[in-house]
């Protein structure tokens, strides 16, 4: 059934909107203008993320006039990731596009991204190489964050924050996205073995409304990044991640124990008690980490994701084969 629906619907454009009443109309027109020449059946999905400014009414009017437009109204403001996931869950296309509804991304770039997906990539990320935002509060933190994320996760994406992305639907529907994961979609997708490409896209200054971001996200991004890194390592070797850390702590414990023994022969001082204490502490840490590793391994095994992830990789090869045929 699902495959049948995918054949009918080639492309879904997902537009999460939060208080973007002025942008919705122009965005719709620009998107239709960009996508119609592709000649594939498409749908435009507006996700109203609990707006309070009549965004829903405007979207509903568009949907009434054009059957290709669908509107999903969320009960309250859940944030960008949740809105995107809502759109992705409801989308029927074989290729999905997500884009900010604030007109800073240009729908005219959609055909470029679709082209890369058709060339065999699973995920194509836009790169706002000439970004039209304030330098100190928006661009500079973003450059630092992207550099760090690339270092830490090993997925070299220049602009994780750009929400103009294209996905193969089979892949993204199986990648777990929750909380504020939208910044880490490339890293999460790489877990499933996705082939990722990035292309330069246009970026415009904000025409309507105000930005909905603040600097407070720095600490969140920091911890989220560490979490993602842990997950990346853990998914590859679920049994060894905490074990490694535990063994390292155990080695340190043995080392300080040895120090205590050696110093005990030195009659000038008597540091045995202190070093013994340190050794005991590090030993307890080692045990804690090893047992913690066992618990998380248990959890992971019981709620297994591995099968789903491998399904994703398998379907990629199938998709490629049918593409070549």
């Amino acid at each position: 059934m699902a495959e049948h629906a995918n054949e009918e619907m080639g492309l879904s454009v997902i537009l999460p909107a939060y208080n973007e009443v002025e942008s919705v109309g122009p965005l719709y027109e620009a998107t239709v203008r960009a996508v119609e020449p592709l000649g594939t059946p498409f749908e435009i999905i507006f996700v109203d993320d609990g707006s309070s400014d009549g965004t829903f009414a405007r979207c509903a009017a568009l949907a009434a006039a054009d059957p290709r437009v669908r509107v999903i109204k969320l009960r309250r403001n859940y944030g960008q990731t949740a809105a995107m996931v809502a759109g992705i869950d409801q989308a029927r296309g074989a290729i999905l596009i997500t884009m900010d509804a604030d007109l800073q991304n240009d729908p005219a770039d959609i055909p470029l991204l679709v082209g890369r997906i058709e060339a065999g990539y699973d995920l194509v990320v836009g790169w706002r190489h000439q970004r039209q935002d304030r330098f100190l509060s928006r661009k500079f933190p973003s450059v630092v964050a992207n550099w760090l994320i690339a270092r830490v996760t090993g997925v070299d994406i220049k602009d994780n924050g750009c929400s103009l992305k294209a996905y193969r639907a089979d892949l993204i529907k199986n990648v777990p996205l929750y909380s504020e994961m939208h910044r880490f979609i490339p890293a999460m997708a790489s877990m499933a073995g996705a082939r990722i490409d990035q292309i330069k896209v246009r970026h415009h200054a904000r025409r309507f409304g105000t930005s909905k971001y603040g600097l407070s996200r720095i600490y969140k991004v920091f911890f989220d990044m560490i979490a993602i890194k842990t997950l990346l390592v853990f998914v590859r070797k679920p049994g060894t991640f905490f074990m490694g850390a535990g063994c390292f702590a155990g080695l340190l414990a043995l080392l300080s124990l040895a120090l205590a023994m050696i110093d005990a022969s030195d009659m000038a001082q008597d540091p045995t008690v202190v070093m013994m204490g340190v050794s005991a502490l590090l030993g307890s840490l080692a045990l804690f980490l090893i047992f913690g590793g066992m618990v998380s391994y248990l959890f992971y095994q019981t709620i297994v994701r591995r099968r789903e992830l491998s399904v994703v990789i398998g379907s990629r090869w199938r998709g490629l084969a049918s593409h070549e045929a």
Partner: protein
Amino acid sequence: MAAVRSRANPVGLALPADDAAKPAAEPEAAVALSVVIPVNREEPDLAATHHAYLAAIQRIGGSYELIYVLDGHYPNTLATLRALKESDPLLIVLVLGGEIGEAAALAAGFAHARGETILTLPAHLQVDADDIPRVVGALDHCQMAIGRRSAVNSGLGQRLLAGMFHRVLRLLFGHSLSDLVCRVRACRRGVLDEIGVYGFQHHFVPLLAQQQGFAVHEVDVRPGPASVAVRRTPLVYLGILFDILTLYVLLRFTKKPLRFFGSIGLLVLIPGLLFTAALAIARLFYAVPLADRPALILGVLMIVLGIQIIALGLIGEIVIFASGRRIKDYTIDKVL
């Protein structure tokens, strides 16, 4: 009185129903309003309360069902209910296996309720029964309506405590409702399906509903004769306050455990690292002895504790990730 286990009866309740076969056919016939009344102590005035409630509910009009949930063994109350059931066979009485708490009692009642609208009432006349139809009527404009007693005649200390309690709530959640103690609450079925009632959360159902984006209205009601019956000691408020803090952490960090544990862990780890480094430098380059004091142990202890707290956060992240696709972060209101 055999314990029956089935989908509609998940906790294996003893049903003092006349025949066990009948309920299987019944659930198709939905009613408009389900009234759930948990009982958690002997209620000598239950018969009077029942008749007052019944009169009020009949004034609302439409089909209804009354479900009493007995949380524990209260022989006198059970006898009263048996007598009531003689005259009104439609009355449903659930007897839980033991005293398992108000939340579980409510959940059992909700599992049995067939109504599109659910009204919970206390087993004593906390509010004037005449005002109940207005609370239910308020549901025309919102998804949940709760009673707010106009003037509970309690002492000064009591009011001060309650005031502080609500101030903390407002600080943590950005909003508060002025009478969380009042158990007269009406809501649409969907509200309960989404927020769930478990653990201690039955106190905060209206707050949680508000947090989930449902419209919650407060309806002014007159306090009933049994309104002052419940006296709260400071200790009770302390317990509730602890519940609130737990709830706050749950609501804010459930899906991002590392943000919570990580910040606390770093607060311990970084001073530990600095302190230990300072000790090492002092020992190696300035020959300050370490052996005669426990400073190094303190430093290492902080490092170990910090790493343990962060590791807990990471384990949490793995658990969340493992169930990632099953977590639904959003609820859809409408699809066009």
